[in-house]
């Protein structure tokens, strides 16, 4: 591509209470492919350099922890966090690693690395909003990156890329927007989600929308009709899945006959009600039946 060495932006990816799904999603990016991102310029003239990434780096143990230690003193890196950050019992529910006999929790790593980063990206719904780890009854006191920022007065710019998992385009596209337009021109919604990807409801462009409007609803999986009665959260979920589609446009959730489960929402997976039940329009936590058994 370019003969001149592009200025590289160091990227550090640390992992909280994750499932690694944010990573298995992003390595399936179409264009740029993960190979483009790792070895080439993400867009001509702009290069990312992954200096710490637990799933792909060669180094383990002390050597890996050294990279984090050294990076914390420098400025000008992008910090990506996937997974929620447990705060119960001083964060011991998630240990990033050990250096010279001392353990470091993801909470400590986030507090150490976030203030000096030029940008923090909370990747996936767990990092952005607490997600699965923070689901009722939130056994480990899992928090989102934003909540950690608020509690510790961290002012580093934060962008949330929710989704369980996030679409690879949402991550790399956001980075491309920032590189070409500048961070200050990236439009975010109230939940710090880029409006270009999270600006519209799934419902707005759903191919089943006509069924909804004419009142034709599927009663069981495989039926013709809108999936509203089967629990579809498309009418209250902001994301562009219905137009973007997934995995090289081979399919997407509603395309496979399954209801959207609302995974980009701050309330995911709790306040939206059961996945398989029709949206309940109430203001209080809706899962009374669930709470009853959990409190037994």
């Amino acid at each position: 591509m370019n003969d001149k060495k592009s200025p590289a932006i160091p990227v550090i990816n640390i992992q909280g209470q994750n499932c690694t799904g944010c990573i298995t999603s992003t390595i399936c990016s179409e264009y740029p492919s993960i190979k483009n991102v790792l070895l080439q310029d993400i867009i001509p003239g702009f290069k990312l350099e992954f200096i710490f990434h637990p799933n792909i780096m060669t180094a383990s143990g002390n050597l890996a922890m050294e990279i984090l230690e050294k990076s914390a003193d420098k400025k000008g890196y992008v910090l990506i966090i996937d997974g929620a950050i447990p705060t119960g019992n001083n964060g011991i529910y998630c240990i990033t690693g050990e250096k010279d006999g001392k353990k470091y929790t993801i909470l400590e790593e986030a507090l150490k690395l976030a203030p000096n980063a030029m940008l923090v990206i909370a990747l996936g719904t767990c990092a952005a909003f607490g997600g699965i780890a923070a689901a009722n009854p939130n056994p480990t006191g899992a928090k989102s990156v934003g909540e950690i920022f608020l509690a510790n007065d961290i002012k580093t710019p934060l962008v949330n890329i929710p989704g369980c998992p996030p679409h690879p385009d949402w991550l790399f596209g956001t980075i491309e927007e920032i590189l070409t337009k500048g961070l200050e021109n990236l439009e975010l919604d109230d939940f710090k989600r880029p409006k270009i990807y999270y600006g519209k409801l799934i419902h707005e462009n759903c191919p089943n929308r006509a069924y909804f409007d004419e009142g034709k609803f599927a009663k069981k999986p495989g039926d013709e009709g809108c999936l509203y009665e089967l629990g579809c959260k498309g009418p209250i979920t902001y994301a562009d899945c219905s137009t973007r589609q997934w995995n090289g446009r081979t399919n997407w959730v509603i395309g496979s006959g399954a209801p959207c489960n609302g995974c980009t929402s701050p309330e995911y997976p709790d306040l939206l009600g059961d996945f398989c039940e029709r949206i309940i329009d109430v203001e209080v936590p809706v899962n009374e039946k669930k709470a009853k058994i959990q409190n037994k």
Partner: protein
Amino acid sequence: MKKIVIHPITRIEGHLKVEVMVDNGEIKDANISGTMFRGIEVILKGRDPRDAVLLTQRICGVCPEPHAIASVTAVEDYAGLSDKIPENGILLRNLILGTRTIADHILHFYILSGLDYVDPARVIEYSGQDKNLNTLKYFLGQGYSTPFLPRDDIDYKFDKETTCAVVSHYLRALDIYKKTQQAATLFGGKWPHDAAIVAGGVSGKLTADKITEFIWRLEEIKDFIKNYYLPDVIAVAKTYSEYLEIGKGCLNLLAYDSYKTKSNGSYNDMLFKGGLISDIDNYSEFDINNITEDVTHSWYKDSGPLYPGNGKTEPVSDKEKGYSWIKSPRYSGKVFEVGPVANILSTYLGKKDPEVKKIVDDALSEIGGNISNFYSVAGRHLARVLSADIIACQLLKWAMQLKAGEPAAVEYDPPADGKGVGLCAAPRGALGHWLNVEEGRISNYQIITPTAWNASPKDKNGQPGPYEQALIGLKIKESESPIEILRVIRSFDPCTACAVHLITPDGDLIGKYKVI
């Protein structure tokens, strides 16, 4: 005695720590700990059983699909639907699980384990026309080296030509992984975390064009397995031949039945036959009631080993003997390894399937080994690629049996109370979900994952888990992160987000944990 701690173990799924005691270059004792947990089973309590398929997939984003299969199987067992799933539903589940398992194996060999055997930095010496290698060479030439460097001392053994060839396959594997996940997404809805696997079958309308799209993608996947993945694993086994002996483990294997296949008009046959293997090649049938979990060295309140369906686990603060969040699943009190070696040998010895036998025998003759060599680092990699090959051979048959336009799901109309069990062969081995339902809501959900079996700590009789047994006696070159240890651990394909989970009867996890 010297203590070596490696934490984090990178290039695996999740957060894992290894601590070994070394004397004179030999490992005398080993402790394995999972260092992250979320309490997914607590979170499941009180929810609609149908929601478990979506939530349990979130246990692991590398291998969510087996959780989906195990979960709906358990829910259908409880709901009395086990025998009512339409043919299309059974086949589509086989196709989704099988295709994603192949992708997972490719990811594991190249992206996760590959850098233990091949040094991408050597591609700087490459001269040739391969586009991927020239891209990498240019990258290195500009002075970039992450994520390949820095690294600990590794005794790379491949010559320049083989190194370049395998690295070029590593880069190609990234593309194939993506294409393989796309193939499964045609039926599953999205990767990761499929949406279409539901209690009662598989959602969606099956059309001929989707089946055709799948079949032609499959051809590329099969080509990669036969002509790249299998030869590369064999090259590792031959070049690093000491690893056909290193990392033996506990020498007992356990596998569950998996992938229903049609035989004499009904779906009673299995592609992978479950069973037990003890002392290398002694096959016997297995009884699920003999599975128990021990918590002697886990951070939970001591209780006699319990059947998972009755699993009652309470975390205990300051438990002196505790060193892991992972419990110790045992079969009749004995230690068992699960995974592709178990699936393949259980089928090879227990079912004597001629196709499987030929694939296994051909591979063993290629490496000049015998069945006992499967109990090793290289043997586990070999079993994984053979598993991919065996599944790939079936995928076309299953795809051709699909009937476009026919239903793939039945209606779900469950009783208020009940119990269910769902078992399957995940990419990492035997996976089980145990479900109890009261008043239509989940009252207890217990999961035993493959990595819980393999990465389990010592039990009440002091028997170390399979990882630990594979490490004890290992000779290492002392360094901060000895490569011998990493090769042994990665050969099991750890998935620690899966392995660490816990449930409390009261949903109360408050307590002071001492993480030592």
